[in-house]
């Protein structure tokens, strides 16, 4: 079953994500239909896509995403709760058992900012947990917001707590806070 001229993994990914020119995609398909080995490697990529959808649906993953991704989650039938916070704001928040994810849209002035780190400080029952730093989160400066999705499964299992989140612009000269946000989470 070995293939004398296997298709590169990157080309298979590009094919699956519809990045190839039509003629290149058709040539690749011709090979795939005659080659069990390369078709098997494409099957792994298809399984990865299924797996990613399953993990997102299960709320098993914390993510930083884009607004169009949130719309894609809605189109896929996921039930979302959304909060939008300006710098300095706080919000009473929760997640119900029948909801799939909470999306926090934290707004900030991001123009000219190249790297943002997110710092989280969680307080449970009056006891502050060690600070967690998430480095170099993805964002589009033009949107003026960063979309945070905590892992829903873990969030549902947590008691009432407070999360203090700080966005920090990181530059060579040092770092500077660009927004503080407080989430007062009540358990359902």
């Amino acid at each position, binding site marked *: 079953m070995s293939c004398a001229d296997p298709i590169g993994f990157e080309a298979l990914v590009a094919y699956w994500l519809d990045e190839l020119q039509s003629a290149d995609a058709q040539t690749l*398909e011709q090979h795939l239909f005659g080659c*069990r080995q390369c*078709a098997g490697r494409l*099957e792994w990529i298809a399984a990865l*896509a*299924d797996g990613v959808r399953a*993990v997102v649906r299960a709320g098993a993953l914390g993510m930083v995403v884009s607004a169009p991704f949130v719309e*894609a989650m809605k*189109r*896929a039938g996921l039930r979302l709760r959304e909060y939008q916070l300006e710098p300095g704001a706080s919000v009473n928040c929760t997640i119900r058992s029948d909801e799939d994810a909470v999306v926090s849209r934290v707004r900030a002035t991001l123009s000219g900012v190249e790297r943002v780190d997110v710092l989280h400080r969680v307080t449970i029952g009056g006891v502050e947990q060690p600070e967690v730093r998430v480095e170099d989160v993805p964002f589009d400066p033009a949107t003026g917001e960063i979309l945070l999705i905590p892992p829903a499964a873990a969030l549902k299992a947590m008691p009432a707590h407070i999360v203090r989140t700080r966005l920090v612009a990181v530059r060579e000269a040092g770092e500077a806070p660009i927004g503080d946000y407080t989430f007062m989470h009540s358990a359902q």
Partner: protein
Amino acid sequence: MPRDSTIDALDDGALARRIAGAGATPDSAAEAELYRRLAPRVRLYGLRHLRERAAAADLVQQVLLMTIERLRAGEVREPERIASFVLGASRMTVLEMRRGSRRRDELLDAWGGGEEAFEAPEPLALDPDRLAGCLERLSERERSVVVMSFFAEKPADEVGGELGITGGNVRVIRHRALGRLRECMGETP
């Protein structure tokens, strides 16, 4: 049905020739083996072009039952090039399915509703807990790019447009992230 061990050694074209040359009594073992081999490839083609599991499953049934019928009837001119025949049939059927559900229903009635049942291998499924753990180990930016690329199957330029970076940059991040994911998941490069 017990598997005919001699059949494993045959390539796809030889299997197709056996089916075509079986005469009045269908070669059930060769038909089942050809279906088993080609079903994953047709399913992947269907998923890639239709992006829907049920539609891809319909495609497998329609294309492969039609192919076997044509082989039995001696209507496939070059059985040794059966993979090309099945690809062509898949392309035509996807076009028909896109024309509308009525036409799709007609195709299903014609080629998918018969008494014959062939078994296709179960699609590969990754362990979700292990995948979640491996995604968790990626950097935030890598994780975002992988999830945004594969959740709704979006090309790099589109993901880049959503994140304020170039498509080339997304491809670099994606390449690195997939390398780490494959290693973490025990997938042989």
